């Protein structure tokens, strides 16, 4: 049996916001290399948008973990629908990460 670490108690007066990083990887492995990426910033401190960067923020998904991002969702592995085995469509290996930031006096 494993013990779940306790959730950190909110700091009184803190105003927490979520920052989201989405990484698209080469395979379903989290340590495979980054092909695409997107940022969404709930703190309002930055305004990421389409086509705003040339180089990815991390080389792999694991590199994001090592920098403190928390993985909150990974794409499921879904077999191709019969008759559509050779179709190409959305990027398959999508991983959502979050950081929680205190916007403090930015409110």
């Amino acid at each position, binding site marked *: 049996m494993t013990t779940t670490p306790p959730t950190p108690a909110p700091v009184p007066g803190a105003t927490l916001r979520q920052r989201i990083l*989405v990484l*698209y*990887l*080469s*395979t379903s492995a989290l340590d*495979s290399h*980054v*092909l*695409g*990426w*997107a*940022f969404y910033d709930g703190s309002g401190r930055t*305004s*990421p*948008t*389409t*086509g*705003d*960067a*040339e180089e*990815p923020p991390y080389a792999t998904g694991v590199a994001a973990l090592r920098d403190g991002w928390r993985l909150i969702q990974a794409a499921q592995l879904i077999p191709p629908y019969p008759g559509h085995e*050779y*179709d*190409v*469509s*959305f*990027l*398959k*290996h999508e991983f959502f990460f979050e950081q929680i930031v205190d916007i403090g006096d930015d409110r």
Partner: protein
Amino acid sequence: MTTTNITEHLLSSVQMAHFVSHGTIRLDAVVPAELNDEAMEVLPAGVPPVPYGTPVPQAYPEGSFVRRLLQLPEVAGALASLVGPDPRIDHHAVHVRGPREGEAQPLHADAIIDVRRDAFDVQLMYYPARVTLDMGGTLSVPGSHLRRTNESDTGRYQNLRGQSRLVCEAGTVVFLHHGLWHGGRRNDSDIPRYMFKIRFNPTVRQRLLWDTSDLADPRVAAELDTHFPWYEQATARLERYNRVLMWRALTGDDTFDLDHWVTRVSNRPQEAAV
């Protein structure tokens, strides 16, 4: 312009193979300066819409600005190679990215999901003035045109390795396959960025419409085999498979293949062993 002039400026097989793998053909600074200057007077006022499916001569009368743009030899040759003679105008539009407007378009393909394997529309994109990196030139994703996605459902993707953020000289024309993922980038400059777009529908079968004298050139297969750094490891192989099917449709050659990708998975011998 005369038929002879078009013949001299048709795309080569290597260029067509480039279009099949990349989904684009780019003609840098092919429009002369005086026509670009005229465009900067004409386009800000807009170009009145025409009904869907209007033939080119009716949409753009002889002598009009747009007709003269389409009669430039390099433009006419590329268009004839891609969609053949007498295409219809699907629609056209002047796209302006305003100075410091703050938003980019989400990554999208135009119209609705379009899975035709043996036909395609092209979109001409004409940039009458120089576009610098901060002016919100069109973002496009090379090799995305065969992905089966609907319009802006790809809006979540902000950046992909190997994406193209258009920077060009005045008078540049780019032809896009209808399925290519693209979008107007955020204009962080103080200068409005103009682009004139026309979508063309073919009226003939799109087979061997280009200059096919180099069909056996090894660079054809090399172009078709192009890898893009945003492809997933496994899906990159399916991209080749789908390009082979498109090349077969364009050439009528059902034996063409790259690295046995299509042949291997369609091999169903019917002859009984003795």
